[in-house]
């Protein structure tokens, strides 16, 4: 076999374990879910095999599901925006600091060493009725009764930002790192002061990172299940909680399947639209 042929084949050889596991662990179960979604749970609790559209019709027409979907997308959007606004300066600082970048990046990764659930629950110790925040305020005599800070949409977003911020920072950092510092110097030498240089050169060139980080935060945020359970109130359920509820609590696999397919479809189309309208390809071309 010629080297050229071998090289042409090599990527597939190297990719095959990943492709096989994606096929077995993702595509095949997804097919099962699709099949399940057309079954029907009968009053007896048994699944009726067949081709029923009942669950699809229920989910697509009931306003309850639509409202929770919108709430999910709203929470994910706000989380993404907060992450972008908080993450950009941090990423910029890391990318522009000299020497100690490795340590700063390590600090950024540090939270990943602790379970996401524990990190989320830590907010209970901070914002709970007998948590740190209330204790300090009471000690200082500012309040007499502890404030009810937890279990609302704001704390859900807080928990999500806490979880997702490092992803955003890393993505922005990578694209900032890629920008040739001479470009900023060139812009300055041509008469643009630092603010203008940032807006016209640095920011546009870091957009791919911002966009990738944003997409990641949005998709992970919209699919979250644990954060609303731990930090949300009864009205702050997100779409993944419905799936859990249907499958685990009610043992209604067909309904759960429909719900998960709807979530996948919605997030999938958002990714596609995002790709199309943010013109990421175009941007990439300019940078390649």
């Amino acid at each position: 076999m010629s080297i050229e042929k071998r090289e042409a084949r090599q990527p597939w050889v190297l990719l095959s374990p990943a492709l096989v596991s994606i096929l077995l662990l993702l595509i095949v179960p997804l097919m099962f879910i699709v099949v399940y979604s057309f079954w029907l749970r009968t009053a007896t609790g048994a699944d009726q095999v067949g081709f029923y559209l009942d669950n699809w019709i229920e989910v697509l027409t009931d306003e309850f599901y639509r409202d929770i979907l919108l709430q999910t997308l709203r929470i994910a959007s706000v989380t993404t925006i907060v992450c972008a606004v908080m993450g950009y300066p941090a990423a910029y600082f890391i990318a522009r600091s000299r020497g100690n970048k490795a340590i700063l990046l390590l600090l950024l990764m540090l939270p990943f060493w602790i379970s996401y659930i524990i990190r989320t629950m830590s907010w209970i110790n901070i914002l709970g009725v007998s948590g740190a925040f209330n204790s300090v305020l009471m000690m200082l005599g500012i309040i007499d009764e502890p404030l009810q800070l937890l279990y609302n949409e704001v704390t859900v977003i807080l928990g999500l930002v806490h979880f997702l911020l490092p992803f955003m920072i890393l993505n922005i950092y990578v694209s900032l790192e890629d920008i040739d510092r001479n470009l900023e110097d060139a812009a300055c030498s041509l008469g643009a002061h630092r603010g203008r240089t940032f807006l016209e050169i640095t920011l546009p060139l870091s957009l791919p990172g911002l966009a990738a980080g944003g997409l990641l935060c949005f998709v992970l945020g919209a699919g979250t299940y644990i954060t609303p359970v731990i930090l949300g109130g009864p009205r702050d359920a997100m779409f993944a909680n419905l799936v859990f509820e249907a499958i685990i609590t009610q043992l209604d696999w067909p309904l759960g399947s429909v719900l998960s397919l709807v979530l996948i479809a919605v997030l999938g189309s958002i990714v596609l639209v995002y790709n199309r309208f943010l013109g990421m390809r175009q941007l990439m071309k300019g940078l390649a």
Partner: protein
Amino acid sequence: MSAVKLHNIVKKFGAFTAVHPMSLDIPERSFVTLLGPSGCGKTTTLRMVAGLLDPTEGDILVAGRQINDVPIHKRNLGIVFQNYALFPHKTVADNVAFGLKHRNIPKEERNRRVAEALELVQLPHLANSYPKQLSGGQQQRIALARAIVIEPDVLLLDEPLSALDANLREDMRVELKRIQEQIGITTIFVTHDQSEALAMSDILVVMSNGRVEQVGAPKEIYSNPTSRFVADFLGTSNILEAEITSEGGQSGLTAAAVGFVPLRDEQMAKLAGRAKAYLVIRAEKIDILPLDAGPDARLSFEGTIEAVDYQGQLVRYFVDVQGMKFQVLNMLSGTTSFEDGDRVSVRFDSQDCVAVGED
């Protein structure tokens, strides 16, 4: 009035001094080249003028105005970076227009000047392309157009040709010089390529280890180096340790293998007060002749060819004269060529020899 004046500027990075007190006067409209080996402080000096680095000490004046504390975006300097630094997300026209936009030049005039600049670098048809679609040479020209369209007081170029391949580099060299002369802009050019420096400069500044070794016209520096470093760095030289002697009222230098070489007074004057003296003979000032060639007015020595290195129309001989190795560069004449081991006559004119001193 000089366009740029450096007055005892110093740059320290921590304990390391990259540029020792350096003073330089750059006349209006001249093309000045900073030449020196890697790490000698050329870029550092240029970046201080550009405002990208603050001098630790000293003053920088542009058009008589002290600009140490003027921020870079108000200095009105045109900079061409080694890697061109074109904005990848902007078209060629927008790249060139960038500086004008930030000077609040109205749109019509802006478009006219961008078109003129692209005309000057002979790439008007690329206005709507993106930098990545251009070849290295084209990017180079656009970077130049972007720098000069703002009509800067001074044009600063840091090794702008080094990323191009050899042929293109020579073309761009001519092109760059043409443009510089056409718009008559004061230019500071940094390179470590001596042929570039010799070909393009009005004034050559040879640097080493953060110090200026010699300043002058390229021809003058080439033919009359004032330090051992410059003699060694520019061209190919034979440098012999020597002693000051005189014979028959004529003073000169005596060195191993060549003996006494009479030198002109102005050369001897360069040695006044120096601890060591060296005799410098340029490789191309030495001739190799067959042993039986008739005598002429030049000094003549017998030697043995040790190696021959053909370089196209030039040939380089390594010759041993009484244990001293000489390098000789001769045009390949066709009629006479020599082989390893040939006994030859090595000749040079004492008038072509230069003395340099060292402390």
